[in-house]
């Protein structure tokens, strides 16, 4: 391991560090944007799947079920490959921006679309879990107050749903940050692919004219550390949120139990 010092010196190279940190930035931006778009699309899908049960709207439910199951049961890379071929790209993407060439921007756009399509299938199921946790009585109460179905969803059901699924959505952000590394298969934009690219040129930077095992450890170790710090802090946040909820929910549940107990007593 006498080449370790040479490998470590790469991390002192400002050009390499900037390249990597830009990759981190892209990873974060891609993931957050993908999750935000997926929440919108996923919510629509979940609502269609849950509430389009009348004869007229059944077809919408079928479409949503097909979409969700299709995207949940096929790999993300599959959709990235498909989008590379079939996804149309609007003209404003096809130019150099964000420090990327127009070719890379096109790739980024296509891969991001694939990521959004894939993630929205997962998020739809998360939202549906949240929708199902809202008691049905709330919808009936809304009807009795003269709310339309759209108003019921917007003012009553969805706010409660999203409050319930915030921890799950945050852990989906973690998954999406990890999934964004799949972009490394097609383009040099985010952290994973940039790490790989530096490794393939490591012989030029580490001063030994060859790529050594220590380069692999240093470069991938650094990338793994960055991913770990981001994801671990997120998952700690999720855990704290859940703990807080358990504390509150536990109290609530016990009071609900008490009420049920009293109801049984009264009935008896």
């Amino acid at each position, binding site marked *: 391991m006498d080449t370790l010092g040479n490998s470590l010196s790469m991390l002192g190279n400002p050009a390499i560090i900037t390249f990597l940190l830009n990759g981190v930035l892209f990873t974060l931006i891609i993931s957050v944007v993908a999750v935000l778009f997926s929440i919108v699309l996923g919510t629509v899908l979940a609502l269609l799947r849950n509430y389009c049960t009348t004869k007229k709207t059944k077809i919408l439910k079928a479409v949503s079920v097909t979409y969700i*199951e*299709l995207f*949940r*049961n*096929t*790999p*993300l*890379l*599959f959709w990235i*490959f*498909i989008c590379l*071929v*079939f996804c149309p790209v609007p003209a404003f993407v096809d130019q150099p921006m964000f420090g990327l060439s127009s070719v890379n921007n096109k790739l980024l756009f296509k891969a991001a679309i694939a990521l959004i399509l894939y993630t929205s299938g997962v998020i739809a199921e998360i939202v549906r879990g949240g929708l199902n946790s809202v008691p049905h009585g709330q919808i009936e109460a809304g009807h009795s107050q003269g709310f339309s179905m759209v108003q019921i969803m917007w003012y009553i059901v969805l706010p409660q749903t999203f409050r319930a699924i915030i921890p799950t959505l945050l852990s989906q952000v*973690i998954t999406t*940050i*990890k*999934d964004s*590394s*799949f972009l*490394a*298969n097609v383009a040099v934009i985010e952290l*994973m692919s940039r*790490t*790989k690219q530096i*490794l393939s040129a490591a012989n030029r930077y580490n001063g030994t004219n060859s*790529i*050594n*095992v220590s*380069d*692999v*450890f240093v470069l*991938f170790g650094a*990338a*793994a550390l960055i*991913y*770990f710090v981001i*994801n*671990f802090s997120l*998952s700690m946040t999720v855990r704290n949120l859940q703990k807080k909820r358990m504390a509150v929910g536990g109290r609530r549940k016990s009071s609900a139990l008490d009420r*049920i*107990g009293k109801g*049984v007593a009264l009935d008896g």
Partner: protein
Amino acid sequence: MSGLFSPRAWNKIWIYRGTFLLGLLNTLKTALVALLLALALGIIFGLLATSGKKVLKAISRVYVEVIQNTPVLLQMCFLYYALAFSGHSPGIIVTGILALGIYTGAYMAEVIRAGIESVPKGQFEAAQSQGFGYVGQMYYIIIPQSIKVILPPMTNVIVNMIKNTSCLYIVGGADLLSLTYSFVTGENTGGSYAPAYIVCGAIFFIICFPLSTFASMWETSLKKREQKAFQSGAPKEA
């Protein structure tokens, strides 16, 4: 849609059906062996996490957190290049099995830990008071009760692993998706994008859909049963 309705493109798929079968075989092989490795790791670290000893718990925690918080693609690349540059390249499939097995093992460990923790503490104490040893207690008392909680999420983990075999692409690729990709971009075979991707997607869907449907149906029925127990006022644990 390049060649979606062209008989020539579909014919090409039929001629090269061996490619897809080979890919399917490689994917299944990788997934199966990786599953065994993941199960072994999951059971070991799941039991460590529920052992109650601080050091063992910490070991399991570190494994799970480190693996779950980094992308599987990075782990696979790391493993592949580290082995390759140190002079013993084990081949793509073996790398895939190791990386996927270790990655999925962390998820298995969490699933098994949650399953064992779902069994009320009184059961452990009762088993001990009846003179069961650790193995007997797990085998006769704890595992039979936790298996119904463990199975649905475990099935989801398996589905994810089958999908993740596509990660093999980055280290050279011998799995179904990679072979499909090299088929559609190949010099002699290229061009029939739509039919090839439809075949590849259909194969993945046919494998994964029954598994994930089984998992979600089992979960729903579990929840319903619990609700019934809750409503009838029969507390499950004392």
